[in-house]
């Protein structure tokens, strides 16, 4: 099959999938950080912080990812002049688009991470928080030493779902010119419409290979790390 060899040589499909993986991992780390902060704000005793957290989740979760990513490029960069890369570098456009895509992906998925962690907090039994308060821990220490460690372990399954969704959603980065898997697939399909089933098959299998192990890993982790009660 010449298409398959073209995938590896001419189009460098592996590099495209490497970009997909980088996009996913970087956004996942950032989204986890932002999401945790938002989740803590939502369960905090300060009313204002609760409202800010809730507003963040409700607004971001209801906005299409495509709009978020397009906004990062057309809005933030072109209209407001926010750039995230060194302007003098000769890879400026690529770097900047990649980082803007990471920004958009992490801001978007942070709202889902926050919801996942909040559902994890709900799995922690009442007695745990009460015991923490009874020994005199203030709110932040209750969270840090007692509730959050258990909440993360209870939230593994939904967090895994978010990671899988993030892997798939990273394809939207192609809309602002990041050459990840779907962008390369588009070019290949345009050049070789006669074999478009094979091309689609290659890229679809690529994503199955990326998401399947993640799903299995998170299932086994959710069993292994489950808090014994």
């Amino acid at each position, binding site marked *: 099959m010449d298409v398959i060899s073209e995938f590896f040589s001419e189009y460098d499909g592996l590099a495209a999938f490497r970009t997909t993986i980088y996009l996913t991992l970087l956004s996942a780390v950032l989204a986890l950080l932002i999401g945790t902060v938002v989740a803590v704000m939502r369960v905090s005793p300060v009313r204002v912080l609760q409202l800010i957290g809730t507003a963040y989740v409700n607004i971001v979760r209801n906005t*299409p990812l495509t709009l978020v990513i397009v906004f990062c490029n057309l809005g933030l960069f072109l209209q407001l002049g926010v750039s995230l890369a060194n302007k003098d570098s000769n890879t400026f456009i690529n770097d900047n688009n990649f980082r803007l895509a990471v920004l958009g992906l992490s801001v978007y998925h942070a709202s889902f991470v926050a919801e996942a962690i909040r559902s994890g907090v709900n799995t922690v039994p009442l007695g745990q928080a009460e015991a923490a308060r009874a020994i005199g821990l203030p709110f932040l220490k209750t969270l840090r030493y007692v509730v959050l460690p258990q909440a993360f372990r209870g939230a593994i399954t939904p967090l895994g779902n978010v990671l899988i969704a993030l892997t798939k959603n990273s394809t*939207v980065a192609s809309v602002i010119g990041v050459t990840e898997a779907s962008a390369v697939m588009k070019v290949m399909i345009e050049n070789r419409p006669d074999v478009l089933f094979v091309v689609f098959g290659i890229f679809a299998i690529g994503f199955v290979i990326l998401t399947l192990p993640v799903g299995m890993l998170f299932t086994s982790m959710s069993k292994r790390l489950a808090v014994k009660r």
Partner: protein
Amino acid sequence: MSGSVLFDAPGPRSKRLYAAVGVASIVALFLALWFVIDRFNEKGQLTAAKWKPFLTGEIWTAYLLPGLAGTLTAAAISVVLAMIVGVLLGVGRLSAAVWIRWPCSVIVEFFRAVPVLLMMLFTFALYAHYEVFPPEQYALAAVVTALTLYNGAVVAELVRSGVFSLPKGQREAALAIGLTGGKTMRLVLLPQAITAMLPAIVGQLVVILKDTALGYIITYEELLRKAEQIGNFKVNLLPALIVVGAIFVIVNYLLGLLANRVETMMRRRGRSAGGPLTADPIDQTGGAGLTGVTTGADDTSDTGS
């Protein structure tokens, strides 16, 4: 609110502390807002010329409403087709016959694992290459096909978890009065499962509506594409994006409220033997599939894109 068990009722000192933190965060929020507005102002994004068009009827009748119509059309067709495909696949996965169950499982797992955008690009090229539809319909057809396949797979998982959530006695009773396996599914299990699924289906609508924005990439005339056109026409891209974003947020927020309403209504009525499946994508617990993790209306997929 789970927060209430996380802290004691505040005493005088804590009250002062909370108030201080509250004030500090309000100040921080206003500083951030002021920074953004200043930036907008500096780049000339706050001029009347950029925002005024949205007060004229022309922008609404020529751009925003047709855009919204495009978005809603694609979403409406997709949700109906996804329901049909989803119920068929879901029932197929529960079938006693291996030769039905197995292909249905493969189809469901495949379409859940492949990004919606990938399917959209593929079907768009497919329709264009084989000229399946009139050319002006390619984009709509591709958007609808991709959304139907992905959300059909999600609905199939919902159907399956809905049937699993029913008490065992339902099935046993149906078989005991002499119904065949097919009739048990059709007359007893499925109606209850679908009722239990209703909130989750409405929640899935939000995902579908958001994902129609992917059609922007294949030139489908939906809200985001219209925002870009407004931006080119009136040189106010940023305001146009913000207005369109607000429209999405409002419509989706209302749909989310509707999902919650449906859920509470059904919990009160309690006609199904199983409890209603939650509309919250994250709390959804479904059957473990090939990917192993629980399924649900996770638009996160996509989403939720």
